[in-house]
């Protein structure tokens, strides 16, 4: 257990270092995803290779001018509004302060997008906290026919099942603001685990491919709608 924690910590540090190097060389206009750092005790920081691999994949398969980097941002940060998309994941509790609730709502209504992936155990806390942001707009399940599932790669059955979790069918939920999908939440699926380096979760190649394709769909949707 200790070894695993050390290994995980080492990989985080390594990735942070690599990211810093990449950041120095990157072009400012290139697309990047902001990993949302939140309070509550959950591991918001896990699998930092997820965004890097996804963005690399999207560069090749969708032509997106992205910088494959891991960056995190807090809701209180001045840099929040420089990210067109935020990504949130974890296993535990989430707590948004009143200010953070307002900031997140402001970010989303101005044009930002939030993708949340339940890494297993995030569901209850996320649903509770996101309701503070949009108290009058519940999460609604997206039907299989929703264009997000078909905009680049085809997912006729909706969200792909990447990890077992409770062996329930995978689901995708959304919050719409003025007709635009501003929050997308995957449950009982965990695509972001599929984006991580292969040695982290040991997913079969086809599962990882599916996860990366699905992630590309999310990016294409965000950058065309």
């Amino acid at each position: 257990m200790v070894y695993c924690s050390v290994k995980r910590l080492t990989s985080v540090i390594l990735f942070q270092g690599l990211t810093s190097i990449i950041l120095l060389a990157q072009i400012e206009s290139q697309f990047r995803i902001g990993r949302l750092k939140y309070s509550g005790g959950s591991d918001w920081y896990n699998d930092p290779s997820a965004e890097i691999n996804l963005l690399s994949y999207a560069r090749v398969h969708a032509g997106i001018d992205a910088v494959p980097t891991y960056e995190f941002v807090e809701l209180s940060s001045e840099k929040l509004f420089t990210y067109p998309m935020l990504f949130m994941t974890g296993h535990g509790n989430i707590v948004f302060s009143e200010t953070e609730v307002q900031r997140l709502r402001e970010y989303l209504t101005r044009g930002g997008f939030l993708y949340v992936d339940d890494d297993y155990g995030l569901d209850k806390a996320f649903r509770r906290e996101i309701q503070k942001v949009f108290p009058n707009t519940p999460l609604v399940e997206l039907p299989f026919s929703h264009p997000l599932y078909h905009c680049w790669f085809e997912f006729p059955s909706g969200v792909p099942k990447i990890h077992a979790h409770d062996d329930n069918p995978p689901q995708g939920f959304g919050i719409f603001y003025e007709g635009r999908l501003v929050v997308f939440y995957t449950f009982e699926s965990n695509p972001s685990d599929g984006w991580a380096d292969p040695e982290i979760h040991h997913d079969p190649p086809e599962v990882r491919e599916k996860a990366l394709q699905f992630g590309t769909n999310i990016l294409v949707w965000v950058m065309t709608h």
Partner: protein
Amino acid sequence: MPSISWATSIPKIVIIFLLLVVAFLSWWYYRRTVPPLPMNRRVLLMTLRWCGFSILLLLLSQPLISVLWKRSVLPSIVILVDNSKSMTVSDTDGKRNEVVRSLLSRFEWKEHFRNALLHAYSFDSKLKQVAFSSIDSLEFNGEETNLPRALQELKTVVAKQDVIGVVLISDGNSTASVSPLYEAVQLGVPIYTVGVGDTIVQRDIAIEKIRSNEVCYSHSRVPVHITVRSTGFTNERVSVQVRDESGTVAMHTVEVSEEKQEYPVELFFVPTKEGVHTYNVLVSQHRGEVTYKNNRGSFDIKVLKSKRTITVVAGSPSPDVAFMRRSLELDTLLRVVLFVQHPSGTIRPQFTPRHIEQSDCVFFLGYPTVATSTEQLQELCSLCSQMNKPLLWMVSRTVDFEKMKFLLSLVPIEIRGNIQAEKVVFPSIVPGMEVHPIIAIDQQKDIRATWSEFPPYYTVPLSVTVKPGAQVIAESKSGNTQLQPFIVVQTVGSRKSCVLLGYGLWRWRMLMNPDVMGGYVYDRFVRTLLQWLTTNDDEQRIRVQPVKRQFVTSEKVEFEAQLYDEAYRSIDNAEVIVAVTNNNELYECILTPLGNGQYEGALDQLPTGNYSYRARVTVHNLSVSTVNGKFFVGESSDEFRELTMNKQLLQLLATRTGGTFVEAHDIQRLFPLLQSRLSSKPVMRDEVVEIDLRSALWMLVVGVFIFTSEWILRRNYGLL
């Protein structure tokens, strides 16, 4: 012999007393003079002084003189005849207008009323005096029956003449929105009403009401709600059609029965051509109908082009694409069709020339890239050029320099040299361009101040040359250095193009606080950009149109025009000639300048029909513009909405004013009633003329003359 009376503000007894006092004082003053004067001269001076002061005293008393004299006048009878179109309806007795003519010609009115003056008036939309001898030649073509107005205008007649009664010959169907009863009572004389027409409901099928949209989009389903009124028919099938110039566009059959009188019908049609169109509504004609004139109606619809289409071609998915699309789609009248290039070079979804053909504007965002197929790019550019589509080109970091060259014939810049490293820049408005529509996104605020709040964006320095005739309206600056043009625009003929040498503009929407900026400035920028690209300047600057789309036959067809040059200054020296055609008939109208670019003109009443007009605007014999349009001239059908005599109203008019109601065939009953109101002797009428001396300048002049004369005499007599 006239009697004269006078009134003053001061009691007369006081005035007389004061006059005596003035007389005494005048005598006292001149009873002894130095040098002594003969009596006659002293009397003259006394008299002058007394007269002068008397006039002054009278003026101060504000006199009003009334002269009353009596003259004998014969009493008058007013014959008031309804001259509206409803009087052409046929009843069981025959046509109403013929009944009226018969009433007027058959009876020797002047013989019956030898001791009276007969005044004849006709009324429809207004009152008109006619010679009694020619009253039976009325045309009964008035478009409305405005009885309240006629009675109101009759008051002046009643005031001047000794009117003992008004004989109103009408079917009683007033089309005015107010009841005539009030004016009738105010008239102050009895009204003897002669009802013309049947009271029995006759068989008729009519269009009661038509309701439709005033504006719609082409290729969209438009509802028309028609109310058909049927009286006297049982189990009759009535067809209701909507027709335009090409034929029937919608039809429905309704079965009418005696129980139900009004039948709502809803029809739908799909207009395909833009512009203002007149649609006629027709119900079938059935034997036995009292009139067919109410079997048709019409309505106008302005058909707009179905949603404007903006085609966006993106080199790859990017936040600029998403934000631009969202901003465009805020306008519900806009349809955005997005094509995204795949890394392989193919475009998704599949692209065809028809997409460009149906577009109102084309956006290239970050396109073309390295992956773009040359053939595809050439085809796109060729289509845009051939179809003269307005073009917006956002040059981003990923645009391929080599492929860029294919676009250069469509855009207002030339590019030489390679793309350099990206730079972070700010917008800078070129002096003088603050009023350019793309820059002036907020007319209420200081434009430079607004643009100075814009967050930085990105550009790739290029060696850019602006083509002749193009305008640089904003530049990119880094620090205090102007790097290169940012927004370049050009209008060639009717085609506009705009290049944005900057990207990452999506950040303007995320980073600018809408609460501080009064909304999303980015959205306003995109909207004004699109508006500039898709607006045909000529259409806005030159406007010639009829004042309304539908006229009736009784009114003039009026035109108005507003003319501005390219700098939006008014054109006051243009010649505007409007040629109006209807089948083979041609009418011409020259508009008169009113100043400030405004012109007006009118054609006399035109017959019913659909008309097209073509307005030519020339300045110094050079053609500036030509404007086309359509309008319709129809008959007002209000007169045929009610086909029976409104006996109740006519009876009320009579009873409320002390008159009597008779039906047309019984008109002779009126004669003894009217004759009984005539006396055997002429009536003496008092006429009063008032002379107001309060402001009579001549009295003042006389007074001044008298005092001056006194003074001259005093000087001559050596008293001064």
